[in-house]
């Protein structure tokens, strides 16, 4: 299966290629007052108003300042801020070590050379904004 890999903080993550709509450069994001904690705001992506969430916040990683490498991963109609987009790799599904506990966002682990990849669950990912009620009424 083909995976899109990316970096959030010091960790590497992956999503199935089919689940990723596009990877974009960062743009100024309009904040939405009173939105939940993981929601950063909205932006204009080629004529579409898209809601942007911060994967770093969702994965409880320390927030690094936006740099040249920061990217937007578009999946499930939402944009997710990641620290760096890496490669698209092809791996044998057998190599995925399933994960079912704690962090429901991660469905499996893959050893790719000397890096450990955490495979994310797109469905749970797109529910992430709701996970934290935050200030939204």
């Amino acid at each position: 299966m083909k995976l899109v890999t990316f970096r959030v903080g010091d960790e590497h993550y992956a999503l199935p290629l089919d689940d990723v709509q596009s990877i974009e450069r960062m743009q100024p994001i309009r904040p939405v007052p009173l939105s939940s904690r993981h929601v950063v705001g909205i932006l204009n992506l080629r004529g579409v108003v898209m809601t942007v969430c911060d994967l770093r916040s969702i994965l409880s990683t320390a927030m690094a300042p936006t740099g040249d490498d920061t990217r937007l991963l578009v999946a499930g109609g939402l944009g997710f801020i990641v620290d760096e987009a890496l490669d698209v790799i092809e791996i044998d599904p057998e190599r995925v070590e399933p994960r079912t506990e704690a962090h429901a966002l991660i469905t499996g682990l893959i050893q790719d050379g000397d890096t450990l990849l955490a495979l994310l669950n797109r469905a749970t990912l797109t529910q992430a904004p709701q996970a934290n009620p935050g200030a939204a009424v």
Partner: protein
Amino acid sequence: MSNDYLSMFIDETREHLQAWSDGLMAMERSGDATAVPVLFRAAHTIKGMSMTMGFTRMGEITHAAESLLDGIRTGSLDFSRPLVDILLQALDVLESLLQSVEATGEEAVLDTTAIQKALKAAASASSVATTAATASSGQATAVLPLRHAEGVSTTMDTPVVEQDAVIKKVALQAIALGYNVYEIVIGFTDDCLMPLARFAQWLQQVDLNLLLHTVPDATTLERGDYKGDIKVVLASTQEFDTVGRTLSDISEVVIRSISEWTTESSDVSPRRHELLPSDRHITDDEHVRSVILHALAQGIRVYEVGVLLAPTCQMKAARSMLLFDAVGGQNRLLFTEPHIAQIEEETMDRHILFVMWSKDSLEIVQRAIESVSEIELVELRQWHQEGSEPVRGNNSVAGPTAQGIAPAERKKVSTIRVDTEKLDDLMNLVSELAIDKTRLERIRGEVTHVGLNETVDHMSRLSSQLQELIMSIRMVPVETVFHRFPRMVRDTARQLDKDIDFVVTGEETELDRTVVEEIGDPIMHMLRNSLDHGVETQVERIAQGKPKQGRIELRAYAAGNHVFIEVEDDGRGINRDKVYRRAVEKGLIGSSEPLTDHQVHQLLFASGFSTADQVSDLSGRGVGLDVVKAKIEALSGKVDIYSEEGKGSRFVIRLPMTLAIMDGLLVRIGANPYLMPISSIAETGRLIASQTVHGSEVVIWRGQVVPLVRAHSVFQETGDASASFIVYVSRGDKVVGIVVDELIGQYEVVQRNLHAELKKIPYFAGATILGDGEVALIIDANAFIE
């Protein structure tokens, strides 16, 4: 069979089936057979088309239905409720067959012999007499709860009807239960060819369980050749005026007499209270009668008029005054009911009855009244002198006609089928074009080029027109989703044994097609709610002094940038205590929380809530009001409920009218731009100084004390808080001043939906992309007002 023909067949047949359904509903309500030709044509056309396409089952059913309808049309068959049921069943079978054709191109292999037999049996049933017989045979054993009655002696002044002991007993019981018992003698005009048909027509509107006695008896009426007067004794909850009016509205029927049976309080004997129809005044006022006589004696005409104000009439007093003006002025009025003072104060219902004098002919008066809008002329009689008494004439207004079902008059619009995905793509492209247009408009200010201005102007106009056109293509009248409700309500009401008057208004109101598609289920749910839990049973209603017939209204109307859909019933309303207790049980609220009635009503929308005593099949199983609310909110709408215990409930759904183009005021709050819909803005002004009253900041605006809301702090903005301007927003009587930091300008923008997660925030109705590509949130002013 080519696909094109098949599609056409499906579309047209569906249209005709709809006309069929509408026609039956209308006929059932009006009780007459005026819409039969329409039904006949519908059946006939479907038959022809089905046969050509080779759909034999559909063809056979419609053929049988056609014979049945033909029978009614030519008068050899009488229109009755069982016939409506059979025709509706046939309709259902045809609909399933049509669906199978649509899905597979073929008719489903259904056994249709049952429905065909039923249709044929109904078609060949011998005429009128059967219906009349069924009617009168129900009376000898009147279905009223039997209570042991004392033996009574009767004292009649002039016994016209032989007092059968059984009838007396039953009548007494009826009176004890609160019914009125009437003895009515009806005759028929000389030119009436089918008196028993007319009799049967009247019986449609009478609850046969309450028919106590007829003379002649059932056997004689069954013979079908009886042409004389008929005496009827029946129980009714209606006033004698209403009963008489119902009778007099049937053509060719003449009321010989109506008497009411009453009991003396101390003596149990029934006593006759004679009320002759010619004495039925809308007033007993001797003075009015003498004035009428006086006028008549001078050769001045006197008319008695009855009108109904349209349900949508907002200003009843004004409309009434216009009506009186139309007939010559208030000085023409000899009598009004309700009283003129009541009309002026609008403490009135929709009925107005009045007696007036005029020198004009009846036709002229009729035309004058009919020219007043929002008014329906129901009764118009001329008074004349007979001997030394004034006497009323007959009603010159034709009886109630069938509700509008006119597929024959339906405009023939040429249409094509379009893939909705293509429509959506088209709309997206047009929206992007609009953005570029705005950009161009800005750029041309900076560039000097011959011809650029003109070209950009032209392009702007084209783009705007394109947008409007696309929007209008997407707009669809709610009728497309409303049309299935009358049938559903009727069937459900029958199932529940409730008598419901279902009124639909505003079906022509338009909504975006995607919204219309989705709003059907929530509305259906609300209707079922009213039917099942709202409107009480007939017995309960009578016990409460309510009319036996419950009323459910479905109305749609546009206001400002929104479309409102309301479902209102006059049922039992929300039991506040029950809901409160249930909510405490479910842990939704603390047991000692003080809540207003309205807040308690909102609890119904909470997840997992249900107060249904039994989980009925109709509503309450699985789908709660919380799902309904979620669905409506997913459409960027809002739903609310208003209720008064004992009086009824009203659901109000508010939906955005279109998905796009709105006029907005761009403001800056803190570091960000926000758009406020012009439709909610009353005015803007500068913030000079404010006052604090009871801890709240207010300012005086147009003589009103208006509370201020500092958007900067509500939004927890950072950045400049110059707070220089106030935007006054209003809804109804409420006004709030929203403090913003800068007014940027007025813009026409395309409104976009927000992600579900953001929709939850009440302050924002959507977002938009500005001309320079920046996004801005669109503020929902209502969130500040509430």
